[in-house]
């Protein structure tokens, strides 16, 4: 059972190929777990659990890390960075993410979050000579430590209130003691939301994201915006539903406001960006708002199953399409040597395949069918509107406006790469599209399409989230 957690340790051998293999192999126990799955298995007095929810997310994390490795190979080799350390840190972060998805007590989840984020502080500064990278790292680090201490303070209040640290016991205690509206509980919920809000970069805890994304090495940025964010969301989902579920009405409203703000601010600022990485950073802030929205509505109505389903579906689809978007941005910026995408005019003609990929991923992010992002948006809108609550409806309208705003900048970038005039036509530099990157491209495109055309594969998630909330 814990095999999948132990496997990444092999990376101590510091070999990229081995890391890749190790990551892939670690999928095997997951498959076995999935096939043999009957009931959730608990360990360490209910503080660690293997259920379908955690298996799905473990699969997602492992896949993302695998793809990030593929993205990294060329990057690491080309710059002669510390390969072994790099892979070790990424794997540690993966291990943290895996622990988060299974943990069911305060201590384990905290250590999981820390293990997931600590290596990222280091990795974001991995371009040692680059001052932007350094700067991104210090910002990320300071805010990260602050957020960790907020989470801790929140946990300490929870512990003080209930004397328990296992989620199920805490929530039973809260319900038995009728502590739902206790200010202490609410304060601890706020602190925890703020702390995790940093990881998922929601307004107003988002400010590190664009700077760090811009500074960090691109594969790390991709990992940050996908896996790290997903880890944060998993932690948030677990904590909100397992611990704070009874105080849902209070945090629901706040989260709804935050979600609306996050979408709007992310999109509006993204309109202004000329650096594709910063654009993606703001866009991923806006997307976080979309992921958060169903969760907040679920908090208000108490229909967690629906909300979690929508959030999780969006999260998974988002993970792959965003990874793909980073892939294409990496390709183009390597080629163009410029971080201003307005200077990328007509670059798609150099490599039409990459151009098509870019268009696919950005359109998918904008929510155009039959790409996956469309289905994700559909599910989210459905869950926002299904309640009939005024907040859900308002959020739906805000989301609708934002979907249109977002289209402007997503379409702009694909317009620029295809339709604007080709700069320095005679430059002979050939377009590099290494094969590991091709694997990433193919994989993410496939998922983007499949999830859009056969959204049925996500119906399992509905079942899963119901099981998740049932126990």
């Amino acid at each position, binding site marked *: 059972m814990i095999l999948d957690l132990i496997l990444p340790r092999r990376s101590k051998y510091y070999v990229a190929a081995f890391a890749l293999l190790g990551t892939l192999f670690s999928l095997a126990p997951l498959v076995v777990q999935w096939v043999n799955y009957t009931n959730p298995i608990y360990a360490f007095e209910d503080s660690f659990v293997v259920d379908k929810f955690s298996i799905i997310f473990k699969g997602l994390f492992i896949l993302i890390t695998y793809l990030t490795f593929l993205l990294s190979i060329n990057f690491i080799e080309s710059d002669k960075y510390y390969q072994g350390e790099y892979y070790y840190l990424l794997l540690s972060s993966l291990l943290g993410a895996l622990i988060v998805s299974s943990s069911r007590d305060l201590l384990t989840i905290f250590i999981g979050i820390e293990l997931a984020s600590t290596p990222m*502080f280091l990795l974001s500064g991995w371009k040692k000579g680059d001052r932007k990278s350094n700067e991104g790292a210090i910002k990320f680090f300071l805010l990260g430590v602050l957020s960790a201490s907020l989470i801790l303070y929140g946990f*300490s209040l929870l512990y003080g209130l209930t004397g328990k640290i296992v989620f199920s016991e805490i929530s039973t205690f809260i319900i038995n003691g009728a502590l739902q509206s206790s200010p202490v509980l609410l304060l601890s919920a706020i602190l925890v939301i703020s702390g995790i809000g940093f990881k998922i970069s929601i307004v107003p805890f988002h400010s590190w994201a664009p700077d760090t994304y811009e500074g960090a090495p691109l594969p790390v940025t991709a990992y940050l915006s996908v896996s790290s964010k997903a880890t944060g969301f998993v932690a948030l989902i677990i904590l909100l539903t397992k611990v704070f579920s009874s105080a849902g009405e209070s945090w629901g409203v706040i989260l709804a406001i935050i979600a609306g703000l996050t979408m709007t601010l992310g999109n509006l600022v993204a309109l202004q960006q000329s650096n594709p990485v910063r654009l993606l950073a703001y866009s991923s802030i806006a997307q976080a708002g979309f992921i958060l929205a169903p969760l907040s509505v679920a908090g208000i109505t108490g229909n967690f199953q629906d909300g979690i389903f929508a959030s999780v579906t969006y999260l998974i689809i988002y993970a792959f399409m965003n990874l793909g978007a980073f892939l294409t941005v990496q390709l183009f910026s390597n080629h163009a040597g410029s971080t201003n995408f307005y200077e990328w005019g007509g670059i798609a003609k150099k490599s039409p395949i990459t151009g098509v990929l870019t268009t696919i991923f950005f359109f998918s992010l904008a929510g155009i069918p039959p790409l996956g992002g469309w289905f994700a948006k559909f599910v989210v809108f459905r869950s926002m509107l299904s309640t009939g609550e005024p907040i859900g409806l308002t959020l739906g309208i805000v989301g609708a406006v934002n979907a249109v705003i977002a289209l402007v900048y997503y379409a702009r970038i694909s317009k620029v790469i295809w339709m604007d005039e080709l700069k320095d036509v005679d430059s002979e530099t050939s377009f590099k599209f290494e094969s590991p990157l091709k694997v990433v491209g193919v994989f993410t495109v496939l998922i983007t399409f499949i999830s859009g055309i056969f959204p049925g594969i996500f119906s399992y998630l509905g079942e899963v989230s119901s099981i998740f909330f049932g126990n």
Partner: protein
Amino acid sequence: MIVQPVLVTAAALFSLGIYGILVRRNAVMVLLSIELILNAVNINFIIFDSMLADSLMQGQIFTIFIITIAAAEVGIGLAIVLMLFRNRQTANINEFDLMKW
């Protein structure tokens, strides 16, 4: 004795730490302030542990973990500061504003 005074002291420590990270210019000083915050959390956990007379001693265990992780964070923080300092000859965090907007 009652718990409130200790809790309030912890909260004061927390706030002082926050004041520190907002006001201090030197990155190392900011790290010091963060230690204050973490210390406040530690006091909280221990005081709750005592208050509840927790037979599992979960508060104490939590504290031990926090201390461990805080040590790790300090190491990382100093490494990053060192790196920054090497590249820019300053540890003043307000001068780190290459990236904005």
